[in-house]
């Protein structure tokens, strides 16, 4: 009997046979409050002291403890096997269903039962260490393995998709990399699409993301460091940089700032961004994000550091300059002259998005003389029936637009159409016909809205949206003087920002002529001979090539 049935040792009363190979732990129905209490205890444990209780000798004790502490969770699979000749070695395979690659594990179990080549070895295993080594070599066809000695290591491996092997009589175990879960496949980036350029975007899986960057930069100097952040979520956070190009001090600073994070959970890179940025109180983002592997590769080549967070396709880039929010990946794939033109258009859009409505308010309220007489007459005629001052008019329209935009984003897709119909009808025409706002105001608001879409850095665009209202208020009270004061204050604030020690407004202020090859102008690639100066001063030469020459006749 023992010889014929490979699963003899697993047939414990606690287990129910689910199919020929997989046994699931029975779920004992418990009152939910016990689960709640257990969860609290677990939180308490993980929050206050890292659980470093060592593993026990007896397999049964270990398994019971695991079952207890994981609250008998259904997706934790524990399978006990015996292997070796006569199945003398008693072991347990523990993994999380859904996170671990089940096929790999079943293959491993099958191997352990059928393959005899290690059997003799185990027979001779009088020394205890040899038995563990035998198990290790058996587990070779699983992923990379490391030894674990305590429960903290066991849990973190188990819950991140690795498989834990425990052997009876050993206070040590093996964690084998079997991560493999259903993730979203690589698809087009949603927020940063391009006409020309790679059409792949990051996914939610950290490993896929790092591999996508590796595929772009095949250099041994591309280094990757991974750490776990979040006491409860234990999220994998990786920093990537090119050794030799990056400024070591910045890497050090990134490491230090990430190390300082003490939080229960990291669910998106936005958490990290807020926790590591230089200036806590600023409407402007000093950390940028991208979901494009080619952008990340380009930034790494400029000497920046990428921070990849498991569970989100948005990768953080530090240090970030103001100008980064006006550069797109496509700028570098298109011809240089057209890219320059597009950048200038983006800056004009920034200006319109920020002060468009404010200028309208200031001019119609205080500086009518600026307008040509005929335009002034037609404006006055339009505003004749409008009972509100220009500021209130503008405020109403801007707020309505922001509401519409928010509705458009949050709504389920099919209803979105309804929003746009209502929006165009109500705002576009009815409001003007009803005499609530003037037609020219509608034009101003529309231009402002469209301009704000042009700014490529989404996080920059949303801060501009916010600042717009402040400038509108100042324009309503002080006219152009208010706008100029607001602009000076804004520039003062922008100049005071730093991103990981690098002045945010560089290379404009401090002015660095050499770095203007890729700011407002995008020089052709053959002319971009150096990397940005402030980010790294060591390895600044990017390429040594002169202008392409015509063939000699």
């Amino acid at each position, binding site marked *: 009997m023992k010889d014929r049935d490979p699963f003899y040792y697993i047939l414990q009363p606690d287990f129910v046979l689910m199919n020929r190979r997989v046994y699931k732990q029975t779920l004992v129905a418990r009152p939910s409050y016990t689960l709640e209490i257990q969860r609290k205890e677990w939180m308490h444990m993980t929050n206050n002291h890292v659980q470093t209780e060592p593993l026990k000798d007896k397999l049964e004790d270990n398994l019971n403890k695991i079952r207890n502490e994981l609250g008998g969770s259904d997706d934790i699979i524990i399978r006990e096997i015996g292997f070796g000749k006569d199945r003398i070695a008693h072991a347990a395979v523990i993994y999380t269903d859904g996170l671990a690659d089940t096929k790999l594990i079943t293959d491993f179990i099958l191997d352990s039962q059928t393959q005899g080549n290690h059997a003799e070895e185990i027979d001779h295993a009088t020394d205890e260490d040899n038995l563990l080594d035998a198990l290790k070599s058996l587990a070779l066809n699983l992923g990379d393995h490391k030894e674990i000695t305590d429960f903290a290591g066991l849990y973190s491996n188990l819950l991140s998709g690795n498989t834990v092997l425990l052997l009876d009589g050993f206070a040590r175990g093996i964690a084998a990399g079997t991560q493999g879960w259903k993730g979203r496949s690589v698809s087009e980036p949603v927020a940063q699409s391009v006409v020309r350029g790679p059409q792949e975007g990051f996914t939610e899986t950290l490993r896929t993301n790092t591999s996508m960057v590796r595929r772009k930069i095949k250099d041994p100097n591309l280094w990757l460091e991974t750490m776990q952040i979040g006491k409860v979520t234990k999220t994998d956070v990786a920093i990537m940089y090119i050794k030799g190009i990056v400024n070591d001090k910045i890497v050090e600073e990134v490491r230090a700032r990430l190390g300082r994070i003490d939080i229960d959970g990291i669910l998106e890179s936005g958490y990290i961004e807020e926790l590591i940025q230089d200036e806590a109180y600023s409407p402007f983002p000093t950390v940028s994000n991208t979901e494009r592997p080619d952008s990340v590769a380009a930034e790494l080549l400029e000497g920046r550091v990428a921070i990849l967070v498991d569970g989100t396709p948005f990768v953080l880039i530090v240090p970030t300059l103001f100008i980064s929010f006006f550069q797109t990946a496509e700028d570098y794939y298109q011809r240089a002259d057209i890219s320059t033109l597009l950048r200038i258009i983006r800056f004009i859009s920034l200006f319109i998005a920020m002060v468009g409505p404010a200028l309208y308010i200031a001019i119609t309220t205080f500086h009518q003389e600026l307008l*040509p007489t005929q335009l002034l007459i037609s404006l006055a005629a339009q505003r004749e029936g409008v009972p509100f001052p220009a500021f209130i008019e503008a405020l109403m329209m801007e707020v309505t637009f922001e509401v519409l935009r928010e509705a458009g984003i949050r709504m389920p897709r099919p209803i979105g159409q309804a929003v746009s119909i209502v929006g165009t009808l109500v705002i576009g025409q009815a409001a003007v016909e009803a005499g609530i706002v003037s037609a020219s105001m509608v034009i101003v608001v529309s231009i402002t809205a469209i301009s704000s879409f042009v700014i490529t850095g989404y996080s920059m665009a949303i801060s501009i949206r916010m600042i717009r209202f402040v400038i509108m208020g100042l324009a309503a009270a002080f006219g152009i003087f208010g706008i100029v004061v607001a602009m000076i204050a804004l*520039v003062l604030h922008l100049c005071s920002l730093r991103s990981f020690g690098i002045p945010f407004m560089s290379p404009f202020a401090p002015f660095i002529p050499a770095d203007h090859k890729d700011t407002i102008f995008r020089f052709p690639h053959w002319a971009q001979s150096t990397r940005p100066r402030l980010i790294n001063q060591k390895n600044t030469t990017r390429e040594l090539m002169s202008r392409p020459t015509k063939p000699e006749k």
Partner: protein
Amino acid sequence: MTSNAKISIRQFSVLIMFYTIGTTILVIPSSLAADAKQNAWIAAIAGWLLGLLIVAVYMVLGKLFPHMNIIQYLAHVLGKWFGKLIALGLIFFSFIGAATVIFYMGNFMTTQVMPETPIEAFIVLFASLIVLGLRLGLEVLARTAEILFPWFVILFVILALFLIPEIELEKIMPITEFGIKPIMKGAVSYASYSSLPLIVFFMIYPASLNRNKEAGKAFFIGTFLGGIFVIIVTFLSISILGVDFTERNMYPSYALGKQIIIGNFIQRVEILIAGIWFMTIFFKSALYAYSFVTGLAQIFECKDYRPLVLPSGMILAAYSLIVYPDVVYMMDFDTTVYIPFSLVFGLLLPLMLLGAGILHKRMIK
């Protein structure tokens, strides 16, 4: 307390340039026209040359103490107590300067642009901007100047280009009708407006610059460029508005903006052009206030000047409302009292300090 803020040579030149232009661009054509009539632009050139001469003295003085600011140097050369006494006089000069400049801004806005808004509103807003700038520090101010510099140049070029068609050269004839004396008088008044107040830069120069050796050159270049802008505006005022109008108008350069008419759709852009002096006046008042606040912190040996910024800003805002009881007083003060006042601090003090410094060096040897 010397903050280890370091600014670059380029930033320093831009700051000097903004400071030289400051309120000068707004008021000097009128006061030059009062003295030198149609030769006001020659007076401006003469004043500019005089200013460069003064800067040359400053450069020599700066070489004496490359790692100190003026308050430290005063204490070093004249002794702790006497040095501090003179330093108090100097920061009083900065204080008066800052208050008057803020008043200029408010007065300009209420008389020319928005007559119904009370002057307090402008002054409080402007003073808050200065407080913001000072709290952020010298480095940030310098970087801001660097960013705003192209905007300033663009606006100025627009002004100058659009006005070229309006120039009537007969208005500046005959040249040197009244001899050289009124021109010299105008030159002195130009220097007292734009060059002598440069003494407040000794709070920055040369200790807070990253390359001390080239600092003198930057000082010179800033004054040189700033003067050219003022000369152009003076020339335009005289040749377009005429002597009489320039003389009677308090802000002739603003009136210049009203003259622009291009193709029936660009017209009356004076308020956009006024953006030029919103910027320059901001830097002038901020630098005056910086010199006042850092000087004060140094005299009383505070570790950091920042806690003094907000109270000083409030005092400045309040004081700028009463520094001139009315505009008549302002014009009287500017033409009679201010010139000797600025001569004492802008020329006499550095000359004295130069003498004392050289003596001090000899005595040590």
